[in-house]
């Protein structure tokens, strides 16, 4: 685990393009056509992503999503439904050869989430990895990740909760009605936290990104060298985008 990995510039894309870029990186990395890569990005418009095994009808209120202009997309990674607030979340992706991370799934989450833990430390927050796929501060979730392994490479992407709008999340995600009580929402505030809440101020996206870049370089033991998406990557991503935007993919389960 040494050497140089590519660091892509911050991007802001819609949900379908972002998912397409992540799959492109995974596929072309596996084919040896693109280097191990770290990137940070945001969602525009805000979106809900569901895990690859979830039923969209059971998890998301599509009427509410339409009302707010929120995109809904199925990921290629497992895990749960997430509301990605344009103004409140920084998202990361790490793509590398499988040999760069431990075979054991939880250990590999721990290694990559270690980048986040160090990044939060740089922001002044004491964070810890919480298996399988979360990072916590003061016992509350501040980041969730999901990983897939295909064709010999690994993709892990996840959230850094800076200041998401939790009430909007409850409108969009189908939680049984009795749970959407003030008491339930209070209990969520006891289990989930944000960078803004923990720091007592809202840092800029750039400040958080810079902290996480340093964190990943340390945790992975690599040098992150700035680079761009290649033409081949961009073209494949543009092609894959239509799959993610399709009703067939969204309603797969």
């Amino acid at each position, binding site marked *: 685990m040494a050497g140089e990995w590519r660091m892509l510039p911050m991007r802001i894309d819609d949900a379908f393009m972002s998912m397409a870029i992540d799959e492109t990186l995974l596929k072309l990395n596996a084919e040896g056509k693109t280097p191990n890569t770290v990137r940070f990005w945001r969602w525009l418009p805000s979106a809900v992503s569901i*895990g*690859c*095994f*979830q*039923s969209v009808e*059971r998890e998301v209120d599509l009427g509410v999503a339409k009302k707010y202009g929120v995109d809904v997309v199925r990921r*290629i*990674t*497992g*895990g*749960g*439904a997430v509301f990605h607030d344009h103004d409140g979340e920084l998202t990361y992706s790490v793509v590398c050869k499988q040999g760069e991370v431990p075979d054991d*799934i*939880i250990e590999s989450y721990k290694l990559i989430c270690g980048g986040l833990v160090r990044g939060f430390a740089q922001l002044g927050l004491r964070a810890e990895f919480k*298996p*399988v*796929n979360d990072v916590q501060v003061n016992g509350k979730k501040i980041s969730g990740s*999901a*990983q*897939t*392994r*295909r064709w010999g490479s690994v993709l892990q992407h996840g959230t850094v909760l800076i200041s998401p709008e939790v009430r909007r999340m409850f409108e969009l995600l189908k939680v049984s009605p009795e749970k959407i009580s003030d008491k339930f929402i209070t209990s969520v505030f006891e289990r989930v936290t944000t960078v803004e809440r923990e720091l007592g101020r809202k840092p800029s996206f750039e400040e958080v990104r810079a902290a996480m870049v340093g964190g990943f370089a340390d945790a992975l033991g690599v040098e992150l060298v700035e680079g761009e998406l290649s033409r081949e990557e961009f073209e494949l991503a543009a092609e894959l985008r239509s799959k993610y935007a399709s009703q067939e993919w969204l309603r797969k*389960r």
Partner: protein
Amino acid sequence: MRYAEFKAPKGVIKVELELTDDAISRISLSGDFFMYPEDALERLEQALAGVKAERESLLAAVQGFYSSTGAQTPMVGPEHWVEAILRAAGG
């Protein structure tokens, strides 16, 4: 259509199924668990088709799925699938 949910240590397993003569004639699994590789979930559904909806037969089918595919489901084990399916079958 019978339906039930079961909360495993990591993730909620959601089961929709139909029974014919006490055996599973159709089953659809969903939820927020992790499974590696992801396409193994369809093989689990296939492995359950035709299986009698009682604990021992289900457990044998699910264990057979794990050993034949090598699939990994962190913090979710054969007994959790069986519990979810029994709930749906009984409901």
